[in-house]
């Protein structure tokens, strides 16, 4: 088909392969280290009782956190898009905010607040409560990880909800189905791709998170890897655990593929241009919903922020310097902004290949792009230290190297968002551009980039936010002397200077709300008026008959009643 020719450029493949190659570096490093150890011994470690116990505890945590995130996110998405919830806009922002809190800050605050002798216990003490149940171990890690990563699901589901065609639900209701049945049989299936996409981000994030599990003392692969690195300094046996984590990731990806693979592509008439009917909550409903959201905001935002404020106050009282240096803020912003640019730049070829040239190569590259995301930052960082110092001494310990690490670590976040946007661009537009004699690069610049901008911005913001919070890779790879807010929080807490850490932590959370605001604002615009968006952001005249279609990720479902080009089908495998 002609459509396929629009980007039939070796350059694109070359770029894609380059990105895939980069993303595979940590994996190659792990394989090499394991090889050094010897595969026999590696197998012994992998099949030891401890490893199997780790496998179970890691899986258990990932499943629980993912399920809870979905259960929290779907109702919130509905409440904030489809109902007459009071202060709806306020809640839209607030419910996404916990993503701005790094888990190591969140856990630390949670211990201060809900620990066996934390603030919460001191309030209950007059009532004779000597000890509150311990939050350490599975439950604490589960609660913290859920609270600070559920917005990954919420953001994708909410976007999908906004673009859901209400006429299908109306039809269901007209045919006499109850609203509950309609939700289960009509709405939920359409939300599923979005739920699965968000759940994947949460599940793999849980696998790689170190902050929560180390502070709340729950043994997972990531924590075990750190213990190995910290204590025994046996890089090879740590690599075995890292490889096991990779295998687990492959399993999760296969699971996701299965879930989204069964999903049929469906087109929806009318798209976002139609306003969905607002469901009245009723007085009781409003009270219940508001208190539930209030409770969530208290636990996920107010408690961590007040614990930080308390530490600051305690330090300030005794004249400890609590405000972070400007240079820290500048460094954090610079590195994260460059990380976002690099993430987006690397994600574009992958997303283009996946959308326009589905096939073995595209699939392989997409899978590879996930490998860095699910590995603990320290593993990715050490791989780059090894490769950088040995092979690329000119790049080692430069900002470029750190940005490169960010790219590897957070690539999938950008790929997901950009792919969702690209799926909405009709290949016929690109085709037209090529037929008018423009080359693939011009077509990319004039057509794809403008039309895909929402995805670029959303993906970039998400990567920026995650880079701000990133710790282990920043510690190991940043240029010597280059401190960021995150590393500052770490150095201060590890030496017991809580007050000094608090200032940096607060700045970190507050600055992370900037990309959060961009994400949420984008969500609003996208949901508010898709016609406006299409006209405005494209900067080109709307081409009549350009088909759009739902994307397997479901992050954007918007369409036009013309037939979708078959070539636009997303690969299902």
């Amino acid at each position, binding site marked *: 088909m002609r459509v396929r020719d629009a980007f039939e450029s070796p350059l694109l493949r070359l770029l894609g392969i380059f990105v895939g190659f980069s993303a595979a570096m940590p994996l190659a490093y792990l394989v090499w280290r394991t090889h050094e150890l010897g595969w026999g011994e590696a197998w012994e470690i992998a099949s030891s009782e401890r490893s199997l116990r780790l496998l179970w505890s890691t899986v258990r945590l990932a499943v629980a956190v993912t399920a809870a995130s979905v259960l929290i996110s779907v109702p919130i998405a509905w409440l904030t898009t489809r109902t007459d919830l009071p202060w709806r806009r306020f809640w839209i922002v607030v419910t996404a905010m916990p993503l701005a809190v790094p888990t190591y800050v969140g856990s630390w605050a949670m211990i201060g607040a809900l*620990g066996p002798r934390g603030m919460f216990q001191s309030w209950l003490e007059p009532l004779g409560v000597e000890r509150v149940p311990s939050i350490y171990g599975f439950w604490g890690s589960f609660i913290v990880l859920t609270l600070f990563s559920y917005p990954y699901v919420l953001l994708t589901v909410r976007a999908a909800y906004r673009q859901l065609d209400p006429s299908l639900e109306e039809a269901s209701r007209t045919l006499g189905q109850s609203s509950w049945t309609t939700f289960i049989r009509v709405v939920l299936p359409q939300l599923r791709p979005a739920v699965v996409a968000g759940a994947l981000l949460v599940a793999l994030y849980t696998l790689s998170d170190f902050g929560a599990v180390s502070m709340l003392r729950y043994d997972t692969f990531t924590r075990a890897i750190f213990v190995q690195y910290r204590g025994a300094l046996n890089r090879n046996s740590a690599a075995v655990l890292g490889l096991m984590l990779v295998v687990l990731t492959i399993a999760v990806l296969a699971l996701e593929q299965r879930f989204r693979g069964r999903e049929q592509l469906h087109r929806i008439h009318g798209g976002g241009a139609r306003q969905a009917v607002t469901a009245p909550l009723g007085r009781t409903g409003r009270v219940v919903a508001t208190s539930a959201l209030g409770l969530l905001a208290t636990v996920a935002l107010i408690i961590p922020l007040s614990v930080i404020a308390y530490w600051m106050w305690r330090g300030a009282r005794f004249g400890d310097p609590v405000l972070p240096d400007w240079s820290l803020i500048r460094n954090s912003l610079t590195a994260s902004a460059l990380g976002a640019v690099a993430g987006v730049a690397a994600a574009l070829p992958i997303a283009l290949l996946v959308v326009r040239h589905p096939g073995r190569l595209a699939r392989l590259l997409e899978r590879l792009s996930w490998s860095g995301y699910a590995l603990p930052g320290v593993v990715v960082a050490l791989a780059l230290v090894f490769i950088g110092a040995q092979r690329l001494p*000119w790049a080692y310990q430069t900002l470029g190297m750190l940005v490169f690490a960010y790219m590897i670590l957070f690539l999938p976040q950008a790929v997901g968002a950009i792919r969702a946007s690209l799926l909405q661009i009709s290949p016929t537009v690109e085709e037209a551009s090529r037929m008018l004699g423009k080359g693939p690069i011009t077509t990319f610049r004039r057509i794809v980039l403008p039309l895909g901008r929402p995805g670029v911005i959303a993906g970039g913001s998400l990567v920026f936010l995650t880079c701000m919070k990133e710790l282990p890779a920043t510690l190991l790879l940043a240029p010597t002397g280059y401190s960021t807010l995150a590393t500052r929080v770490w150095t201060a807490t590890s030496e017991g200077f809580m007050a000094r850490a608090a200032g940096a932590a607060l700045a970190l959370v507050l600055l992370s709300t900037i990309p959060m605001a961009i994400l949420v604002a984008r969500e609003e615009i996208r949901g508010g008026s898709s016609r406006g968006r299409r006209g405005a952001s494209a900067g080109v005249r709307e081409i009549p008959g350009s088909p759009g279609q739902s994307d397997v990720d479901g992050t954007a479902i918007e369409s036009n009643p013309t037939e979708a080009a078959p070539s636009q089908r997303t690969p299902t495998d």
Partner: protein
Amino acid sequence: MNRLLKLLSLLLVAALLGAACGNDDDNDTDDDSGADTTAGAGSDDSDDGASLVVYSGRGEDLVQPIIDRFEEESGITVEVRYGNSAEMLLLIQEEGDNSPADVYYSQGAGFLGTLSEGGGLADLPEDVLDRVVDPALRSPNDDWVGVTGRARTVIFNTDVLSEDDLPDSLAEFTDPEWNGRIGWAPTNASFQDHVTALRFILGEDGAREWLEGIMANNPVAFENNGAIAEGVADGEVEVGLTNHYYLYRSLAEDPDFPVQNKYYSDGDPGALVNIAGAGVLSTSDNQDAAFEFMRFLLSAEAQQMFSEANFEIPVVADVEPQAGIPSIDSLVLPVFDLNLLLDLEGTVDLLIDVGAL
């Protein structure tokens, strides 16, 4: 749209420029090393005012004031990479011959010993070695020195306990009366060094027995020493196995901090004195400046700063510790040499085995 494109390209250019600047630095050091092998680096060093790269396993709040002072006095620029001692060692190992680091400043003797054993450290000049009063506090291979002493102590909550309530020996915390009252940090390097020491003092079986006894008392595992101090202050646990100086930092932030140190002595297994120490990397192309830095770390001025700011124990003869802190010669030094601490792997295996990790 064009704006976005411009912004993107601008950011990219900025990134490339940043990387390019980094290149220049690195090329400079490359040139230095080239000069080293051919003619000696003296002239090169004076060119860029001599700069030094320190990998510090100790936090910025502790180390930076001393670095600042050194820069002021020597005119040598120092760049410091802060991190965890183990991670910094990993970094040096992964970097191999291309390590940009000149000095490794570690939280414990074990990591320095590991590096020394692999031939990663350069021999230190006599005058640096001689500053350290006790030979037990420096490398038997003469390639690293202890910079400050860090005593292992038991901290206790003064609201619920007095010093008399504590047992006379660390070994006795295995008594069931301490069930649920002990805090420790099994992933912490200082703690692991202590366990390595116990393996020599009490023997493998003795150390295992002690660990199992503590485990039977359901100790609360904290992430680091600072967290133990907070946990003891909050009353989450009543006693904590930690280093002597964490307490003083919390006291500096909050004078009402209800925690006190109990020092063990006279050959008790609880009386270990570990060090924070430093060595010069054998791959360093700037060893003269690095030795200068080592001299400064052991100077009376720096030792005084460590003592005042961090309550650590000076290792030189001419500086006294802060009031209330025992001097290095009054504490009984470990009978074995600190290089034995490098058998970390055996310790971690033991800790995993008894279920502490």
